[in-house]
């Protein structure tokens, strides 16, 4: 599903963010990227999502080299992905329903299907019944769940999450992680970047640990 071959990335005027990274993630796999801030977790996710590009190395997402992908094809690649960020970036000028519906509208889905699928996604994150509320009226944890609903409403094959629990307390964080494992159980490839080792150390999933742009550990919890 995802393969990084000898990937290096350097932001202008700063040290290398990534140094010759090799990662292979199978279809349907769930894995975590960990490390301190600045270790390169976000950079890897951004490269996979085509938010950043690098000239060194290959970033293959199901055979497509994202680095070389024509910019006008990038939106089509993103429609197969769900992206969850620490800040859910909800739009406060519209209600929750409209926020979650956005990916479907962009894809040109018919409106009756949109209603059905948005309700399905909100049900999944436990927010059914709050469709007409403004995002600003929700708690931080609920806002993050709206962000997740928006990321999975179009049924992506790949779910990328960058510090999705960064603003949440341990209980809410566990709930969010539980959601991700549920998506994984129905076949979605999930890649989560988090610095919260305590949260994931007990989960039976692959953990890729980064330090200063290099992979220092890659394996499963026992």
């Amino acid at each position, binding site marked *: 599903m995802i393969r990084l071959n000898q990937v290096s990335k350097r932001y202008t005027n700063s040290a290398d963010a990534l140094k010759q990274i090799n990662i292979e993630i199978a279809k349907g796999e769930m894995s975590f990227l960990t490390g301190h801030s600045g270790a390169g977790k976000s950079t890897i996710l951004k490269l996979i999502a085509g938010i950043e590009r690098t000239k060194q190395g290959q970033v293959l997402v199901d055979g497509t080299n994202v680095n070389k992908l024509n910019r006008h094809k990038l939106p089509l*690649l993103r429609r197969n992905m769900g992206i969850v960020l620490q800040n859910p*970036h909800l*739009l406060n000028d519209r209600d929750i329903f409209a926020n979650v519906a956005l990916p479907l*509208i962009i*894809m040109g889905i018919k409106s009756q299907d949109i209603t059905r699928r948005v309700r399905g996604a909100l049900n999944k994150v436990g927010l059914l019944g709050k469709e007409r509320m403004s995002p600003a009226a929700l708690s931080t944890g609920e806002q993050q769940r709206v962000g997740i609903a928006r990321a999975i409403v179009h049924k992506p094959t790949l779910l990328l999450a960058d510090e999705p629990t960064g603003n949440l307390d341990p209980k809410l964080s566990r709930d969010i992680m539980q959601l991700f494992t549920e998506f994984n159980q*129905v076949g979605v490839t999930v890649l989560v970047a988090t610095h919260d080792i305590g949260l994931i150390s007990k989960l039976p999933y692959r953990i890729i640990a980064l330090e200063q742009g290099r992979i220092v550990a890659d394996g499963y919890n026992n």
Partner: protein
Amino acid sequence: MLSKQVATNMTSTNVRMTKKNLATASLGAQHLYAFKTCWQHLRKTVFASLLTVAVIAIVLALPMGIFGLVSNLQQVSQHWQKGTQLSLYLNTNVSEQQVTELLSTLKQNPYIANLHYISPKQGLQQFQQQSKIKNILQVLKHNPLPGVIEIWPNASIHSAEKIHQLQQNLSTLPNVQSIQLDMQWIKRLYSILHLGDSIVFIFGILFALAVLLIVSNTIKLATQKRVEEITVMRLVGATNAFVRRPFLYTGITFGLLAGFAAWVIVNTAFSYLQSSVSQLADLYSSSFTLQPLAVSQLVLLMLIGALLGFIGSWFAVNRELRKVSFDS
């Protein structure tokens, strides 16, 4: 539900297929979204939007007003054009048969609308009537007046050059001694009208540029206010076209409304000028009235406005699209 079937692979061919599906996908829903977004934006910024429309309308009204005045003047000049007349003075020794031949030649000339022959005898009679000198022949012994053919050119001859050309052609005919035509004032009038056309053209270009700048600046501010929305839309896979669309609709709406307002402004100004123009026309014993801009010109103005709005917002959005990036 997330079924395994939906969660199939995402190959590059799949990306391409999705693109194909994109064309057949419900474009209606996408455009509806763009319309809604545009409408919401306009509703939230009613005052600022009206201000923009007003500025564009005034800028469009100026060249359009000059255009209206110039085309009115052209109407007047065509009216006067009908009075343009050439007088062919014939040699005194021509026979009646030669005159008949000349008249039939002239009648075949497509540029001549009408002609009238005044024989020396008729000329003398007219002269006697006008001057009230009786028995003039007793003094002069023989009639000194030449035959005259009065010619009214065809309406298809608009310009001074063409009339001049006709004059040249006629002067080569046999038995024509001279041709009289007061060309000077026609030439002057046409130069002024030509100048008017050029002024409309230059003003049109300059003011069109001004409209582009106004629209693109307004849309630029709109995009800056909605950076968050643009960021999210791109994150969830919106094409640039999708992001652009609401802004383009806003720009086009500005242009359409401003085109309409400009038409109203010009016609209001014209109706205000009407009484002064009528007074002036009365002095020249003319029944001339200032013609307002036609409905076809309203359509034209709105189309021009929409086009300028489209181009202006296109540039503004594209410039902003290049800047927007993601932060987590």
